[in-house]
């Protein structure tokens, strides 16, 4: 089905750093020189031949790209459509996050930075950052909510083994949002030698665009791989889970302006959209400012940012990246919310049918097939953003295995 309504629109960032009405750089003056330096240089640096060469070499030899596009035969039979899985779970460190940290560490080096900071929720981005810092021999400090440090002990251990310093965020709710605040405060305190590697398509411009470009290798590969397998570059649908939205941004990127490709973003409904324990930002959020970006976010009527909830720490963020806010507001993207229970069932189903243990984040994307029906000949690509090793305890306890 071709939806021509969108064919003349552009879903990428404009020259002012906005996606429609979303984005911008709402930052205190203390951050201006750093963010401005990045804004003036990121496209130039990324266009350099030596950068491209080093980036792609590392993605190939270190990360293990291209990741396979796998036709999930038994899953397809069950849901009576053609389901392909983009295997980001097979990336080094276990998730797509490393695509971005490789890109940003190369950027940081070219900007002459010697100290790297990052925030992390579940610890996947923290591990991916600690990994590239070890690779490049740079100092690495990862901010992580005190609550998450307890919940995600294996990833804390990984970061420490890789030589990173893990600093607990003890303010506010002591989770991802607060870890991000602490990282920003650290950047304010260290304005000259430090680069902040944001882990998602959030934060002030140019971060959402820069991170989306580094992750866009996902949809670039899908195009080539699908051409080989199906004789066409474009699937009928591409599906990805959205917390901040970096894996989704990468999977959607080269299809944003292809109206014949349906874009499906899957959010975490937590215990249910109306339970007060949810992270369905598209449903529950209003336009506001979070972490330097104007976007949809969950907040009180008075503009205080509220705590989201999801069983999956990677989707437990009160906002979405401005690109996704615009996909939602413009109608270009179809947004579906999946509960904890639906995601857990879908995760177990993938284990049983395909022998793949997905991260609970990715299980949300897989869960849509129960209620969202596709035609038999539809080609549906699901971005399998991460592997489930980090979630084994949660799966085991949930299913009492």
């Amino acid at each position, binding site marked *: 089905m071709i939806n021509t309504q969108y064919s003349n629109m552009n879903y990428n960032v404009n020259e002012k750093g906005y996606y429609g009405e979303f984005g911008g750089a709402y930052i205190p*003056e203390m951050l201006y020189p750093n963010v401005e330096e990045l804004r003036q240089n990121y496209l130039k640096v990324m266009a350099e031949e030596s950068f491209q060469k080093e980036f792609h070499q590392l993605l190939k030899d270190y990360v293990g790209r291209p990741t396979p596009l796998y036709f999930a035969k038994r899953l397809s039979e069950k849901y009576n459509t053609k389901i392909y899985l983009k295997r980001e779970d097979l990336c080094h460190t276990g998730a797509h996050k490393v695509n971005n940290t490789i890109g940003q560490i190369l950027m940081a080096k070219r900007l002459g930075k010697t100290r790297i900071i990052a925030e992390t929720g579940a610890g996947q981005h923290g591990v991916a950052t600690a990994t590239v810092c070890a690779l490049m021999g740079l100092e690495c400090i990862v901010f992580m909510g005190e609550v998450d440090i307890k919940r995600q002990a294996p990833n804390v251990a990984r970061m420490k083994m890789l030589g990173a310093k893990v600093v607990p965020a003890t303010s506010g709710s002591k989770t991802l*949002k607060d870890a991000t605040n602490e990282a920003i*405060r650290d950047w304010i*305190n260290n304005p000259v030698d430090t680069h902040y590697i944001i882990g998602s398509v959030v934060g002030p411009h140019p971060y959402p665009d820069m991170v989306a470009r580094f992750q866009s290798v996902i949809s670039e590969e899908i195009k080539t791989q699908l051409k080989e397998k199906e004789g066409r570059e474009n699937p009928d649908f591409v599906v990805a889970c959205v917390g901040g939205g970096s894996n989704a941004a990468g999977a959607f990127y080269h299809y944003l302006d292809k109206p014949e490709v349906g874009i499906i973003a899957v959010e975490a409904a937590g215990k249910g959209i109306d339970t007060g324990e949810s992270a369905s930002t598209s449903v529950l959020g209003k336009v506001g*400012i979070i972490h*330097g970006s104007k976007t949809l976010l969950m907040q009180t009527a008075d503009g*205080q940012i509220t705590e989201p909830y999801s069983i999956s720490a990677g989707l437990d963020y009160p906002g979405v990246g401005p690109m996704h806010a615009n996909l939602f507001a413009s109608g270009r993207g179809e947004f579906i919310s999946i509960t904890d229970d639906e995601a857990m069932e879908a995760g177990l189903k993938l284990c049983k049918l395909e022998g793949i243990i997905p991260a609970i984040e990715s299980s949300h994307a897989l869960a849509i097939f129960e209620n969202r029906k596709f035609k038999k000949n539809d080609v549906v690509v699901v971005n399998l953003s991460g592997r489930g090793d980090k979630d084994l305890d949660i799966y085991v306890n949930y299913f009492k295995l």
Partner: protein
Amino acid sequence: MKRIQNKLSENNKLLSIYFTAGYPKLDDTVEILQLLEKDGVDMIEIGLPFSDPLADGPTIQESSQVALKNGMTTEILFQQLKDIRKMVSIPLLIMGYFNPVLQFGVENFCKKCAEVGIDGLILPDLPLAEYEEHYAEIFKKYDLLNIFLITPQTSEERIRMIDTASEGFIYMVSSASVTGSSSGFGVSQQEYFKRVESLQLKNPQIVGFGINNSGTFQRATKHAKGAIIGSAFIKMLSEKGLAGISSFIKSIR
């Protein structure tokens, strides 16, 4: 009403105090304002608490959390300030983050400020370009000054741009830090203050961040029009309560 400009034209160095509205108790706002004026403070920044204060250190973060737990909202703050101009005549500014203002409605917020007699706003995460493109007219309509920040990393070109866009004063952040750090006022800060002084800007500068006693106040104001104390004042409030205000202010100068 040119309370800020009139105050700036006085000859002395100005002492300005920041406190978080709704802290330590929800209804302390008016009494704190009155006590500060009585003790000779020249200007006050009333902090509108926010859940995620990016530019603030632990002291102001905690006071904001407590204020929100106490039930402080934008609506309640304006109710508390309803009759403030019958009691307090020094310049009053509201300092906060942009999101609560955005949710209240920028025009509605400015209108309320004008009604209760607020003279200016300091919204650190509302950038210059956004302000000029979307909000400057609204601020002018309600005769509100918008105060911008500069830091030791701000380029001369940008300082001049901010000076052009400013009326009233420029908030000179003393060092590369969040609020409440005690980096002291060493040689590099004195050089930075002198460098900005030598630019001969049309707006006077008031120094903020890191001022916590008489010594740092003296050093901060050597090359600037005044200084703002925030975290140190809040720390004092949490230890001694409102009863400690008078001796704290007297200890500064």
